[in-house]
């Protein structure tokens, strides 16, 4: 856990993570000039975790970049390595989804599928019985996504037909604060982290997060960056928004129970009402309109819904295991 207190706006440029195997080590070495790029594609990942961290590094170059590695975004060898990791990841995700998909991409079917999800809830634990240390750890791990909240979904906007593109742009506008930077969701989370004395630079937590967090984040950016997977990106968005409002209310109550700074609770307060809207607009106006315009994407929308819930459930189980619960 970090002890550094960040004051002021801080840097938004991440530092490169600690490698977790041969492929991420080779990638970090190449990014810092210590290894020729042509050696990197010959390295095999030591594990799924090693591959996922490598893809996360490649994806971050498309987002904020790294202080030590500027302008490496389109390095062909890194794109090739990333695509290989993404192919393996997508195969694993599709395997998990076999026989587990919502029966259609009808908006009400999708919302009911999310509602009926019976996984153990981290938010319910936070509301009732989590310790302050557990909550700090949870927020630290969640920061990998929340500090770039909505950014991976932004890649999807230009890939959608008119009606769902307009609806997604409207949703994103709300995520980005409706023109008011102080309301931007990622900024609200950063404010909360700073109030807790946590390092709020994007990606600061990366060396600490478990593989489940790497997988969630790589999946989301992969869905955004591959046009072919736009249906899955939209499905993921539906499940993410539709499983947020109630849990955010519980998170805010738990944070106040434990006496956390008001800035952190305020981030979750914002999501109670925002996501009650977004779950409806995502299911009806974004996913519904997409499937109407491109019916062949219905199964990928369902795949995205399942994958979002499945990954959250795996993350929750990993955290409960970690805490001996």
């Amino acid at each position, binding site marked *: 856990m970090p002890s550094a207190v960040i004051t002021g706006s801080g840097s938004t440029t991440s530092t490169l993570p600690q490698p977790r195997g041969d492929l991420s080590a080779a990638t970090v070495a190449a990014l810092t000039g210590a290894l020729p790029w042509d050696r990197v594609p010959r390295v095999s990942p030591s594990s799924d975790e090693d591959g996922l961290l490598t893809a996360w590094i490649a994806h971050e170059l498309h987002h904020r970049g790294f202080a030590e590695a500027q302008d490496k975004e389109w390095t062909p060898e890194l794109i090739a390595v990333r695509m290989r990791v993404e192919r393996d990841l997508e195969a694993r995700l599709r395997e998990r989804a076999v026989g587990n998909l919502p029966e259609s991409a009808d908006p009400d079917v999708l919302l009911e599928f999310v509602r009926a999800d019976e996984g153990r809830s981290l938010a319910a634990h936070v509301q009732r019985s989590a310790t302050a240390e557990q909550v700090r750890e949870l927020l630290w791990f969640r920061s990998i996504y929340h500090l770039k909240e909505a950014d991976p979904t932004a890649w999807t906007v230009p890939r959608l037909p008119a009606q769902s593109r307009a609806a997604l742009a*409207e949703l994103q*506008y*709300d995520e980005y604060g409706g023109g008011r930077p102080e309301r931007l969701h990622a900024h609200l989370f950063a404010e909360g982290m700073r109030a807790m004395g946590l390092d709020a630079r994007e990606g600061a937590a990366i060396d600490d997060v478990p593989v489940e967090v790497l997988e969630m984040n790589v999946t989301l950016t992969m869905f955004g960056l591959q046009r072919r997977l736009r249906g899955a990106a939209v499905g993921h968005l539906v499940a993410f928004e539709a499983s947020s*409002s*109630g849990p955010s209310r519980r998170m805010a109550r738990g944070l106040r129970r434990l006496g956390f700074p008001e800035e952190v609770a305020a981030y979750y307060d914002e999501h*109670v*009402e925002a996501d*009650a*809207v977004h779950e*409806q607009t995502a299911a009806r106006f974004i996913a519904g309109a997409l499937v109407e315009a491109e019916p062949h994407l219905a199964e990928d929308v369902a795949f995205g819904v399942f994958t979002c819930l499945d990954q959250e459930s795996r993350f929750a189980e990993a955290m409960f295991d970690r805490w001996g619960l």
Partner: protein
Amino acid sequence: MSRRVDLTVCPNGPLLIRGDIGVRAPDGEVHRTERPVSAVCRCGKSASLPWCDATHQAIRTPFDDEGDSHE
């Protein structure tokens, strides 16, 4: 800025409002929308009245079978 307001009734869900409006509560207080689309509670169980907080998901009391959308 368009002053047109569009409403969408979500089956077993909120009333979606696209546009800038105020909702006058029974106590006379006017709650103004602060986002591009707002959701007004229709189940009556929200903890954030007049806005929806998705509590309808938990209570599961059907209150509308004839969801309709119009612009």
